[in-house]
């Protein structure tokens, strides 16, 4: 299990080299979330986090998903601070002997994390305004799929 909470960017290659090193790993699925700007209005995304709670919350989710999908390994990295459009926000990765478990584990972990990892996003726009990102209805209900 690999859990990182950090301000600086991460290297996918370096992180993925660390997981799934066992000869039983046949599949690695990774998800990378990036700062998106559909309308060319975003200045920055600021991510606030609860430092004392983050790592243990992420670790508990990673352990849960590892057991539930019988995964070989799970990785979560989540950044905080001020991020520009196009920057990496976070990554999860799952290693498994079979591909469907790796896909399902990563997909589930993202649903889980959206509503349970202590991070909050605030968007600052080019016109000087800013607002806290509201949780999506779809995110709150996503967990009921599993």
């Amino acid at each position: 299990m690999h859990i990182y909470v950090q301000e600086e960017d991460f290297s996918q290659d370096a992180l993925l080299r660390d997981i799934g090193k066992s000869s039983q790993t046949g599949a690695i699925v990774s998800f990378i979330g990036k700062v998106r700007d559909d309308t060319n209005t975003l200045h920055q995304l600021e991510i606030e986090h609860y430092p004392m709670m983050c790592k243990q919350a992420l670790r508990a989710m990673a352990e849960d998903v590892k057991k539930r999908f019988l995964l070989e390994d799970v990785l979560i990295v989540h950044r905080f601070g001020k991020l520009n459009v196009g920057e990496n926000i976070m990554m999860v990765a799952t290693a498994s002997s079979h591909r469907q478990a790796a896909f399902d584990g990563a997909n589930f972990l993202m649903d889980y994390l959206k509503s349970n990892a202590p991070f909050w996003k605030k968007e600052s726009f080019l016109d000087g305004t800013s607002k806290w990102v509201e949780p999506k209805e779809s995110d709150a209900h996503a967990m009921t799929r599993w």
Partner: protein
Amino acid sequence: MDVKLTYFAWVRERIGLHDETYTTSATTAQELALELKERGENYSAAFHDLTLIRIAIDHEMAQWSACIKDAKEVAFFPPMTGG
């Protein structure tokens, strides 16, 4: 009982504090929030609708009915938007 209170996102902004140490005799998280709400305009702005707020007790997510008797830290924040 002395408890550390921590605030995040717009709860923090409305109250104007990251954290504070507070003395209370409240037994549940909900009692504590209702007590805080009476401490001034900034607190009442933050706590006017408890359904918008989530809590963690000693870094674990908790319900409003949860006992805070032995809590060292209670955190108040909006629904999370990580990922």
